[in-house]
């Protein structure tokens, strides 16, 4: 197996569940309490991609929530191979934040593989993002997952999809 290492940045507005997503993916754990991230928290997880004969090590940068990147945050993003944009499905404003962040990233570093996570799908009763917005996200990103860090629903699939996109992108570049 060939080892392949990629830096992945999780970005999005505050309290959308970025840390919980990373915690669910890396440690299969979830905590109900909300604890603001300051700066960046770095974790790693190895994914096996047997059909490509690759062990894919994801270095996951869980970056503090923001609706707009400043100089400090851009330093965190440098050298990232892919991005996970997280939206809180119960707060439409976080969808606008994600779109704005994606625009900033593309302007600064060019386009890179990415996926969108519409998180907190377990709170269906409070859901605020309408279907037409979801369709627009699909059209723009191509990969949108309704996830729940609480239940784990679709979290792993989303990371796997991004990992696959990064590998495809790198293979195309070679």
């Amino acid at each position, binding site marked *: 197996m060939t080892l392949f*290492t*990629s*830096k992945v940045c999780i970005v999005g507005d*505050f*309290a959308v569940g970025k840390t919980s997503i990373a915690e669910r993916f890396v440690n299969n754990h979830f905590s109900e309490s*909300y*604890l*603001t991230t*300051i*700066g*960046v*928290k*770095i974790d*790693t997880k190895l994914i096996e991609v047997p059909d490509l004969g690759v062990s894919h090590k994801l*270095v996951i940068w869980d970056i*503090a*929530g923001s609706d707009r990147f400043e100089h*400090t945050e851009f*330093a*965190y993003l*440098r*050298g*990232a*191979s892919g991005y996970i944009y997280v939206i809180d499905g119960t*707060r439409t*404003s976080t969808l606008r934040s994600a779109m704005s962040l994606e625009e900033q990233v593309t302007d600064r570093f060019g386009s890179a593989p990415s996926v969108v996570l519409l998180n907190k799908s377990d709170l269906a009763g409070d859901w*605020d993002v309408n279907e037409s917005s979801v369709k627009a996200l699909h059209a723009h990103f191509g990969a949108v997952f309704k996830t729940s860090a609480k239940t784990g629903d679709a979290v792993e699939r989303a990371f796997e999809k991004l990992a696959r996109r990064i590998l495809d992108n790198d293979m195309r570049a070679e």
Partner: protein
Amino acid sequence: MMQLPACVVHNLQDEYFSSERLFCFLIDENYALVQIWGDAQRWGLDDIPIGHDMRDAAVFLVGCVIGEPQALRFVRLSRHSVAHVHLIPDGRQSYVVLIDASDEHDPTQAKQQKTNELRLMHARQNRLIGRQRELISELIEIRSELDHHRQEAERSSANKSRFIAMMSHEFRTPLASIINYAQLAQEQDASRNDIQKSVETIERSARHLTSLVEALLDDASLSAGRLELVEEQFDCHNLFEDLARMMAPMAAEKGLSFATFVDSDVPKVIFADEVRFRQILINLLGNAVKFTQEGGVRLKVTYSSDRLVVTVSDTGPGISSEDQEKVFKAFERGSKRSETGAGLGLTITLRLVQLMGGEVSLDSQPDEGCTVSIYIPVNVQADPVAAEAPVLPVPDQDALASRPLSILICDDDDDMIALVEHYLHRSGYGLIATSDSSDAIAKTIKYDPDLVLMDCNVPGIGGVGAAKLLRQQGYEKPIVALTASRLNEEERRAFTRFFRKPAPMQELLVEIKRLTH
């Protein structure tokens, strides 16, 4: 840059290094470790051999570009260690400096936590306010609807109360006549003239009661959507002539003129519900004659775009635009209208026209008469012969002469049997009577009467069921319904003819004679 004496710099440097717990390592362009300074164990970077790829141990180096300066604030490297990371290039190598930020991290996080929680609370509040506004508008809408329904209910209740009071009066008046004149006729000293006059009044009052009941039943059936049209071919020119013959004397009695104009384009035979069509026109013409005191009434019929256009105009008092909305509503009348009648005529007319797929228009001004037009789509039949009554086989006159014609009557009302018996005996018929439909079947099979006269709401399987069973058992002679029940089209097909009680006995006898000779 300010130059300080070397001893001051060294002193400050020592203090800074000890307070910030600095750690530093040097890597080459391949991220290989060259040298380490400081407490490596604190950062979990001890026991790493020189030349090792540092991206394994210090994963934040993945993606970093050697040779470019970088500053990463608050990098959490483990559960208990947070550092500000600086990459300082030096030729093809880079120094990586870690400054312990744990003490700075916690107050910064506490402050940011509070800010974020407040922002979240604000967002939730805004959402609740938005939802509250939506609920308030929904409540206002619901309240408005409820007010509307309440007003409608109050209006309907008031109308019904008025209607019940009015109906009580409408029913009591003819009932009083019937009772009083029946008593008068039975008095011992009543003259033949008194009896004749009493009977005429009783008949007139009974007819009036019948029309009231019919109107109420029609209105109830139409309201419940239970009324079905019975469509058949008929000669509509004959219908218009009939109506003219019926209405002209009524108009003449009031000194009014009555004119009929039927356009030559109007088809002779149409396919529609003749009974209901006649009812609509009688309602319109009857109203026109009833409310007009001077001048006249005119019936005009034209045909256009597959629709019959029937216009009834009068020179009556007219209807104000305000009243025009009311006159088609049940139990309401225009303010100038007379207080007699159920107030259902125009409601029934409108609903019947709509049931036929047509429309009604009203054109009127106070003191300038009234014109009501109805537009009814009709299916035109090309062959007028088809509209004629079915040709019955000619009975064998010799056979008929050999025995008296017999009729079986099934009715659970003894008075009705007695009445029919009286008329049929007088016309030379033999009568077999029963009050039970199952018995009627048995007697029909046994005695083979020349005609069966059947009530529908009778004990046993009922009149309709009995008629169907008789047909299944091969009885081919006429079965005539004489019933107070309403029958739908399918039920009517079980009978040769259908008479609705109270049917005029003379009409019934004429039909019985036609069917048995």
